[in-house]
């Protein structure tokens, strides 16, 4: 970490402020934005990357895979045999009371068995240095576009910091995602058509939807571009209706199908769920995944890992209090000032109450709310997230709290974890809220290649450079053609000038 920081610090505060301006203008002209309260703004990326060593990444990657594997089995079970309830691992009442447990999803069998095509698992490091899972995102985890763009942005703005590190590439994500989506196509479809469904340009993550469509070379569709007929899904094209076999939908379940969910949704496609049930389109991620990332199910995930995989969890949870137990509820209410209280169905940091930062009024309000609806909330002890050096607006460097969202893609055969991830940073001093919707920024996340310390010795010698290999023949290395010297020929120039002077003298 030291050479990285010293490279940056040698720029000085003024230099860092300048680089910050270059970054901001790059992000705006490239249109790397997210939309907050209707306004499009750049997602600020800090100039200091977060570095993760190869060994630690192995653990993260294995832990994320294990968790997704267990949660896939849990979803298949919950929308199937429900052995997990029968065996008393998770109380039935907890599942049936989850607002994301959708009876409509029952009986939909995904073609290759995958329901979690894309997952984002939020991790934090606690005071003891232990990485813990803070929450699972199994519906429409967003942020991966910034992982790719942050790398290019830093290489543009602070190229010097890369010089001592062998950082693993994040470029292959779109290809992995597309392969996973194609692998999820309904049975018998050899050349599937994949599309991304976006709510439209006003959605906060529209940049990401467009980015992924562009990088995967597939259509970005809105609800009005699609229709269902005869049990199939089509998009309207100039060449007539064209079947869609896999839909990577980036809209929430309740807006997806007005025939099944919100009847007034204009973002979705009427009848799409029946097409999915008939096995003629695959929805990614599957409908009803929210039951597995419900915050009230979260405390049970370590149990689920043991139950389904017979393994010990690699990445532990953060201690979480189930408020439905009256004793626990009264314990939490007594210690609210040291707790974080979260709505189970929420995301984006909305509704969160952080005890030590809350006013007495806020605490008494939340105490009332959780007593009335203990199923709707969870409480966790405040975890002081780890920090990472971060450049402030005035060019000073100071610690700020961070988390990490690694992304994983499941193609049915293998769960692949993108070597990198979105590190979110709370830009306000002391703040623990990193959500971009709450004013958080991001950091490029560098996963170092194994043995990158000995990078120098691994570099190839110049004589091995492949441009000189046998496949290149002389014409390619030939000089580039040049035109006649139009004005630079000295003799011609002199004569032309002379001509002008003579003309001048006679006039």
């Amino acid at each position: 970490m030291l050479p990285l920081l010293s490279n940056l610090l040698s720029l000085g505060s003024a230099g860092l402020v300048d680089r910050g301006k270059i970054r901001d203008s790059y992000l705006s002209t490239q249109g790397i934005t997210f939309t907050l309260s209707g306004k499009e703004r750049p997602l600020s990326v800090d100039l200091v990357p977060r570095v993760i060593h190869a060994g630690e990444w192995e653990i993260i990657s294995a832990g994320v895979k294990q968790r997704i594997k267990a949660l896939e089995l849990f979803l298949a079970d919950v929308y199937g045999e429900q052995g997990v309830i029968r065996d008393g691992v998770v109380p039935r009442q907890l599942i049936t009371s989850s607002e994301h447990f959708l009876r409509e999803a029952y009986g939909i069998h995904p073609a290759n068995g995958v329901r979690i095509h894309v997952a984002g698992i939020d991790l934090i490091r606690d005071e003891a240095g232990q990485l813990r899972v803070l929450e699972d995102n199994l519906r429409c985890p967003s942020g991966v576009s910034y992982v790719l763009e942050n790398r290019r942005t830093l290489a543009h703005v602070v190229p010097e910091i890369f010089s001592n590190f062998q950082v693993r590439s994040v470029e292959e994500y779109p290809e992995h995602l597309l392969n996973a989506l194609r692998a999820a196509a309904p049975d018998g479809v050899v050349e599937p058509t994949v599309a991304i469904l976006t709510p439209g340009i006003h959605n906060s993550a529209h940049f990401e939807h467009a980015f992924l469509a562009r990088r995967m070379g597939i259509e970005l569709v809105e609800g009005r571009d699609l229709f269902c007929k005869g049990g199939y899904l089509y998009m309207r094209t100039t060449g007539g209706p064209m079947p869609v076999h896999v839909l990577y939908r980036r809209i929430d379940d309740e807006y997806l199908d007005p025939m099944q969910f919100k009847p007034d949704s204009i973002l979705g496609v009427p009848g799409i769920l029946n097409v999915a049930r008939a096995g003629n389109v695959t929805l990614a991620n599957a409908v009803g995944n929210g039951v597995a990332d419900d915050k009230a199910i979260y405390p049970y995930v370590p149990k689920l890992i043991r139950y389904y995989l017979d393994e010990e969890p690699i990445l532990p949870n953060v201690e979480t209090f189930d408020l439905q137990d009256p004793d626990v509820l009264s314990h939490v209410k007594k210690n609210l000032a040291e707790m974080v209280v979260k709505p189970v169905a929420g995301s984006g940091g909305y509704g969160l109450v952080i005890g030590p930062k809350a006013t007495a009024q806020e605490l008494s309000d939340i105490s009332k709310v959780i007593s009335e609806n203990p199923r709707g909330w969870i409480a966790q002890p405040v975890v002081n997230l780890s920090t990472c050096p971060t450049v402030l607006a005035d060019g000073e460097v100071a610690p700020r709290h961070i988390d990490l969202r690694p992304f994983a893609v499941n193609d049915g055969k293998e769960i692949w974890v993108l070597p990198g991830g979105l590190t979110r940073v709370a830009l306000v001093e002391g703040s623990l809220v990193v959500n971009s919707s709450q004013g958080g920024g991001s950091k490029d996340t560098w996963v170092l290649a194994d043995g990158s310390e000995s990078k120098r010795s691994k570099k190839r010698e110049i004589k091995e450079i492949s441009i000189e290999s046998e496949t290149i023949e002389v014409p390619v290395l030939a000089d580039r053609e040049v035109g006649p010297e139009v004005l630079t020929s000295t003799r011609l120039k002199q004569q032309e000038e002379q001509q002008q002077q003579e003309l001048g003298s006679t006039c």
Partner: protein
Amino acid sequence: MLSRLAESFFWMGRYLERCEATTRLLIEHHQLTVQQHTLDDAASGTFLTTLLALDANSSTPADLIASVYGSESDPSTILGTLAATRNNARAIRDAIPGDLYEALNSAYFAGISEVPNPGLPGTVLRAQIHRLAIINGILEWIAPRDSSYDFLQLGRSLERLDLTARLIAAGYDRTWPDQGPVTMLRSVDALGAFVRGQIPLDGPHVRTFLISDRTFPRSIYFCCQTAEAAMRRLKDRDDHIFREIALLRSELEFSNASSAESDQISIVNRTVDVVVKTSLNVSNEFFRPVGSIIWSA
């Protein structure tokens, strides 16, 4: 039209294209080598200077930026092509739209005054791409579609053929297996067009795309087509000037898209050869009529 005018239009097209392509290539090469340390600095510098046929020794990334940005006197460098474009435009100032000359001039003066910081070249180089886009935009908007435009188009197409062939031959995909293929596509701004074809993003497919794609304006096939069309408009009856390029085009038209690497490399080498021959044919046919007297000192 005057042969001299025709020649200047032709070379203006070539230099303009070369300037844009070299700038874009430098941006992407820099992005790649910042992130991937497969080669040491000297080797990755030699890689690019060899591709661009530059006679420069670049042992550090900063040297490389400085050499490729170059000087006004070397028309293989960015600044050199900018100067050469403007010089050609100056010689035909009467025949080109005023707006075009203004845009060329501002690109040229910005080019000499805003030299990229060798440690941080991205911003200046990107601004240059935008200025060149303005020039190309004016040409597309208001340049009369007469012979002058055909000569310009011909120059552009031949230069594109040359650059695309060099890019494929250099072997980014072999030297940087991780990001080389993406870099090749980005260097000609073809990433979006490529991925829409839904084919694997690897060296062989990227090479096939850059050689034979039917719709991408910088593929070898497409450039053969535009060059041939321009020459047909100029002189339809004399097919000897475009015979070489038409043969290459028709070969690509009917060739197997998934040809082997050795076949691809031989097409690339032939392309470079065809560009040289065609350029010479065009020059002999239009710019240096038989019987012109050359005085020697």
